[in-house]
C-alpha cells in the first residue's frame, strides 16, 4: 500500500472537481506530511483530426493552456486552505494509446500515490456504457490504494 498522505486529484474544469479539491484541502490541511498532485488527463484527438489538417502540437498546446488555468485555480484554493505551495504539484498529459482512467492509474502507480480523488458527475447507465466513468473505473481498480469519489 502506498503512502495515503500522497494525494492524486484527477480533475477537469467541472464544479465536482473543485469540490474534490476542497475536500482534499479539508482532509489534508492538518497533516504534518502530505503531498497533493493535481492531474488533468485529456484524450487523443478524434480519428479525423489529421485529415482535417489538425496538428498534434497545436492540439496539445490548447489543451495544456486550458487545463493550466483550472489546475492553477485548484492550487490557489488549496493554498487558501493553508496548504503550502511546496506540497502541491501539477501535471497535464494526453492519454496516448490508453484510456484516461488507465493513464490516471499508471501515474498513480509511478508516483506512489496512496489516495486517488476524483469528482463524480453522475451518469446514466447508457452514458456509462458508451462514454465510461472515470470515477467508476478508479473505484473498480482500487486495490493497492484508496479511492475517494466526491459527489
Amino acid at each position, binding site marked *: 500500500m502506498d503512502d495515503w498522505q500522497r494525494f492524486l486529484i484527477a480533475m477537469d474544469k467541472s464544479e465536482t472537481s473543485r469540490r474534490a479539491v476542497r475536500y482534499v484541502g479539508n482532509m489534508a490541511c492538518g497533516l504534518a506530511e502530505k503531498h497533493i498532485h493535481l492531474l488533468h488527463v485529456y484524450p487523443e484527438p*478524434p480519428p479525423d483530426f489529421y485529415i482535417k489538417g489538425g496538428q498534434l502540437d497545436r492540439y496539445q498546446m490548447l489543451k495544456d493552456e486550458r487545463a493550466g488555468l483550472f489546475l492553477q485555480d485548484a492550487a490557489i484554493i488549496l493554498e487558501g486552505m493553508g496548504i503550502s505551495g511546496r506540497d502541491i504539484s501539477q501535471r497535464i498529459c494526453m492519454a496516448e494509446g490508453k484510456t484516461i482512467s488507465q493513464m490516471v492509474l499508471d501515474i498513480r502507480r509511478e508516483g506512489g500515490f496512496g489516495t486517488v480523488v476524483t469528482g463524480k458527475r453522475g451518469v446514466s447507465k447508457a452514458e456509462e456504457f458508451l462514454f*465510461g466513468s472515470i470515477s467508476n*473505473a478508479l473505484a473498480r481498480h482500487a486495490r493497492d490504494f484508496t479511492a475517494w469519489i466526491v459527489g
Partner: protein
Amino acid sequence: MIDLSYFPLRILPRLKDHPAVRSLRRQPRIWRDTSDFTSIDYGDIILVDNRYFLVVGYMREGRFGIDEQPKQWVPKVNDLETGESNILKLVFHETYSIKFEDLKVTCYRNPEKEARVLDLVRGNPAFMQGYSVLDDADNLVRILDVVQGKRMDKYLQRLGETHEEYFRDHMVGVLKRFLVAVQAIAFLHSHGLKHGDIRRDHIFVDWDSGHFSWIDFDYDFYLPERPYAMDLFGLGNCLLYIVGRRNFRGQDVLEDPELGEKVYASLRMEDMSLLARDRVFNLKKVYPYIPERLNDILMHFAAGTSVIYDTVDEFHDELADCIASL
C-alpha cells in the same frame, strides 16, 4: 471503335472478352489516382499494385429496411491478369452521428484502421481477407477477397421451421460458432484495434465449413474512455438476433398473434435495450423456454442492468460458460 492497343499484352485477352468492356461505347479509362472515385465508372480500370482491376459493379449496403444504395467507393472488380474477383475499397472520409435517445456518438470511416486490421488478421478465417496499397495519389486502397459465404441473419432463417425447432436443434451450434467470432473481436481489442461496425449482416457464414467471418472494418468511433463500447453493443445485438432469430420491437410483440397484448403488457422499460429503447432484450418474455442463464447475458445489454460488460473478454467468458451448460 474501341482501341485497346495501349493496354499491356498480359491483360488483353480478358479485357477484350469481358462483357463490361464489350458493352462500352467509349474507351475504358485507367485510374491510377482514385481520389475522385465518383467519376470511376463501370468498365473503367483501376491500376494499383501493378494490378489492372476492371470495374464490373458496386457493392450495395442498406441499413435494415432501407433500399440498398450502391457504394461507389466499393467497386466490384476483376483482376484482368488472373481473372480473380475482388472488392476494392477506396478512400471515402465520411463522418456521421449515431443517436441513442439524447446521446450522440460520432462515427468515422477510417481506411488506415481497416488496413491495420487486415494486416493483423491475415490468414485468420474469422475475418475477411485482403491487403492495402497506396495509389498514385497516396490513397490507401484496400484489395479484398470475396467472402465465400452467406450473411448470418439470412443463414439463420433457414435453420428450422419454427423458433422452437431452431432453438432445440440448431441454436447451440450457432452459438458455438458465434463464440469463436467473439473471441476474434477480443483478439482485435488486445491489439488496440476495433471492428467498428458489428452488425448481424457483417458476419458471413462460410459455404463449406460454416465458420463465421467478420467483414467491413473501416468504421471508427471516438469514445476515448470506452473505445470498444460500440463493438460490445454490436455483439449484444448479434447475440440477441441469434437467440431470437429475429428482433422484436414492442409493436412486433403486440402484432404477433402468438404473443399479443398479454406479452406486450408484461414488457417494462428495463426489458428493452440499454441504448435502443424500442428493442426487446428480455427474450424470456417472448420465448419462455430460453434458459435463464442465456437470458441473463442478454439482460446485461438491457436498460434494467445494474452491471455492464467492461470488456469483450467478460462477455466471451460468460457466454462460453453458458454454452457449456446448455
